[in-house]
């Protein structure tokens, strides 16, 4: 249970997973924010107005997956590092963008261990891009390529020794 | 809490507990002590802890030297499981004016005549005892190696524990609200926890002795004033005796723990106020860095204040009063109640129980009636 272990349950994740048809169209943000805390940078940073936090900054964010372009601006702006993008538009593969604040940074093309929400290695992933920029404010956006069935499982990676 | 006792003592400071113990030790066990907070929470626990015998009046010399003998044997006499920490490091009294030198000569003569082996010293001799003493402005000093200090909290605790073992009932967190009297006789005490009837009520209320006297309808010429103390961080032992200057109105000692503790007689209005002031810090620092210059490097870690309960001749008022039968007083200690608490307890007990005591004449002399008769005993040597 999330409140005891820090690991969201399958039900938690199911509640924030976009429809598969949407993900097949291209990248889309998955907001893994399950607790009402006073926070709204996801909503205010979204250039498309796809994320709404109602009038109350404590309400959970609500995303309109049809408006979301998967640009990942919210990913690097979320103080909780709780937003990812998932893209199932390529056959057999899933592209995941995740926020990353550790050093050293992985290299493009590097094969890393793919890690799930509980910190367990579940396979391998390929780094396809490492983005940084002024607007990113020192949070890097790392693009991972994983098998399609792990699209909603892999949320971290570990560089091989 | 009992509702009836032979003696009720108001005040759980060192005086009240000493009287309670000596009453019980002499057979009077039906005694109740009332304390509005915890034992030694008032003037006792806030005092400078000094125990000296170098006084300027016969009364104070006798009270203090008798008490010092008690302090020497107190752990054993009271079978105290702790330690009252009586350390005889001496008192060095320093004189800066010819007038003081003159007084000191008289004092030493008086003290010596009473068996107190104090000595008159030159500034250089004084510096041998306290090497960091600034002797530039110094004219003379007196020293008595049997003076020293004890832990007021432990002394009070020692008396209280011994008294309890003998059957005395001590009620802390019990506030006296009034004193009952019938005509010119005292009949009991009203507290926030009920009433106690008693033919004898002892006022040992320290800084609040005036308030208690007023409750009984008895006039006392005493009043309270704030005295402040500061303590520094502990350092290696470097000062044996208490250093005291009537010129600066200060005293300063190094405690067994290593901290320096110092206090000052300030010019304050009578009150029961015990909140600290920065003015004290300033005046104290100014004076002590002049007297004992190396202390300027020590850090002050804490300051606090307590009450001196002053009598007009700076000498305590002991015993009963013609105004109210059964009302006994041990008040007006003027800042040196702690060091004469042992003798005070002995004499008050003897007085209440009608027993003989070789120093019982002191009681007659220090009775409240002395003010009406104009027979004051002005103590010249008080900070």
């Amino acid at each position, binding site marked *: 249970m*999330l*409140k*005891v*272990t*820090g*690991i*969201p349950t399958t039900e938690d994740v199911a509640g924030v997973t976009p429809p598969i048809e949407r993900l097949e169209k291209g990248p889309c943000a998955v907001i*893994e*924010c*399950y*607790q*009402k*805390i*006073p*926070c*709204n*940078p996801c909503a*205010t*940073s979204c250039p498309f107005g796809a994320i709404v936090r109602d009038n*109350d*900054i*404590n*309400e959970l964010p609500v995303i309109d997956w049809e408006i979301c372009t998967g640009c990942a601006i919210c990913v690097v*702006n*979320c*103080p*909780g*590092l*709780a937003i990812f993008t998932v893209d199932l538009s390529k056959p057999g593969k899933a592209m995941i963008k995740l926020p990353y*604040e*550790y*050093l050293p940074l992985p290299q493009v093309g590097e094969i890393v261990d793919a*890690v*799930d*929400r*509980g*910190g367990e290695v579940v396979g391998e992933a390929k780094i396809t891009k490492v983005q940084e920029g002024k607007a990113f*404010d*020192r*949070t890097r956006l790392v693009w991972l390529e994983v098998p399609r069935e792990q699209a909603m499982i892999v*949320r*971290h990676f*570990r560089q091989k020794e | 809490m009992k509702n009836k006792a032979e003696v009720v003592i108001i005040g759980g400071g060192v005086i009240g507990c000493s009287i309670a113990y000596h009453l019980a030790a002499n057979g009077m066990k039906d005694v109740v002590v009332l304390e509005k907070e915890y034992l030694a929470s008032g003037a006792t626990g806030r005092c400078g802890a000094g125990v000296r015998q170098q006084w300027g009046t016969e009364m104070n010399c006798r009270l203090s030297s008798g008490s010092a003998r008690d302090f020497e044997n107190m752990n054993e006499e009271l079978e105290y499981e702790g330690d009252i920490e009586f350390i005889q490091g001496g008192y060095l009294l320093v004189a800066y004016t010819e007038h003081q030198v003159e007084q000191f000569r008289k004092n030493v003569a008086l003290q010596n005549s009473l068996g107190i082996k104090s000595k008159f010293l030159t500034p250089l001799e004084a510096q041998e005892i306290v090497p960091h003493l600034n002797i530039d402005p110094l004219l003379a000093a007196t020293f008595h190696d049997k003076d020293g200090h004890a832990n007021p909290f432990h002394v009070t605790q020692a008396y209280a524990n011994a008294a309890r073992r003998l059957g005395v009932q001590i009620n802390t967190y019990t506030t006296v609200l009034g004193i009952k009297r019938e005509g010119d006789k005292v009949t009991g005490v009203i507290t926030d926890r009920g009433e106690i009837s008693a033919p004898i009520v002892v006022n040992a209320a320290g800084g609040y002795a005036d308030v208690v006297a007023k409750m009984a309808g008895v006039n006392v010429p005493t009043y309270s004033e704030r005295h402040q103390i500061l303590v520094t961080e502990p350092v290696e032992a470097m000062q044996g005796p208490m250093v005291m200057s009537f010129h600066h109105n200060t005293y300063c000692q190094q405690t067994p723990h290593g901290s320096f503790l110092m206090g000052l007689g300030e010019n304050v209005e009578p009150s029961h106020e015990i*909140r*600290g*002031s*920065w003015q004290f*810090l300033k005046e104290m620092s100014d004076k002590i860095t002049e007297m004992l210059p190396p202390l300027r490097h020590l850090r002050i870690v804490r300051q606090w204040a307590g009450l001196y309960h002053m009598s007009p001749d700076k000498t305590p008022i002991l015993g009963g009063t013609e105004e109210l039968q059964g009302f006994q007083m041990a008040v007006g200690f003027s800042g040196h109640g702690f060091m004469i608490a042992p003798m005070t307890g002995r004499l008050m007990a003897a007085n209440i129980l009608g027993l003989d005591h070789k120093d019982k004449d002191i009681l007659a002399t220090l009775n409240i009636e002395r003010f009406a008769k104009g027979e004051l005993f002005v103590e010249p040597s008080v900070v």
Partner: protein
Amino acid sequence: MEHREIVVVGGGPAGLCAALQAARLGAKVLLLEGDDRLGGQLIKQTHMFFGSEKQHAGTRGVDISAMLVKELKSMDNVEIRTNAMVIGRYDDGALTVDENDEFKLIYPEKVVFATGASEKMLMFANNDLPGVYGAGAVQTLMNVFGVMPAKKVLMVGAGNIGLIVSYQLMQAGVEIAAILDAGPQIGGYLVHASKIRRAGVPILTRHSVKEAIGTDMVEAAVITQLDESWQPIEGTEKTIECDAICLAVGLSPFADLFWQAGCEMKFIPELGGHVPSRDENMETSIEGIYLAGDVGGIEEASAAMVEGYLAGLNAAVSLGYGLAEAEGLRADLKDQLNDLRSGPVGDKIRSGLAKLQDD
């Protein structure tokens, strides 16, 4: 002896904002900070802040501090003194200050005490072994002085501080053996917990440290599971290798100056301990003494900043500054505080504040 209009004591988030707001309205402000630099805990916060844009959400704490300090330093009516610790408050209104080992006296017309909080300690065997740290000390070593405090840390406390400091340690290359919490649930934000958990760090609720092991310094820790009444369950002891035990077991308001001043104090566990009573304008029971931030109740830095603005505003207004804009500003700041506190994680602070109003 100096006489001043408004003195703000403490240069953390609350104090910086109090000084800023009072100065923006035109008051002459003296800001006193005991440390050698401004920013308080902000300068150790390398993570992005929560809250809304008005409290600089999404910006890292250290950058918020720099922004606030920059604005303060640009103002003519603000004097900033560091290494100037207020060490006493007396009944005549005087503050005594230890400024670079000089002793000074300052009489403010109005004062805002924004003195923050101190870390709570935990009792366990050998807790005086070198290597047992408070989380704040670890953060200072790492993020202020660039010193790595250990190689493998056992973190005690899964509140926001325990979680954030764990994350920062991991960023610095330090391994976190585990994060323990005596409570049945993680107390900090779950997004923090999740990001640490997915990096492989176990979070053990209902666990506590029983003993530190080591001769000259920490070499391991014995941890134990706790039952529902918070008592250790015998036989559940486990030894965890680590060279540091980091305690993040809560904060106590650092309210000494209010006690010294004689302000009315109340014990409110939800606010972290004894805190001064105050009105809605952040003024205590003694006229002219205001408070802001953790010293009035342990909360997030975002709330501390808003309280700072509010205290600074009211102190300035009480001297006649900013009367025209006061009402609007005040209403906005109160709305911000309400927003920050209105959700479920604000339950504790809301009930604490409600108790404060009860007499």
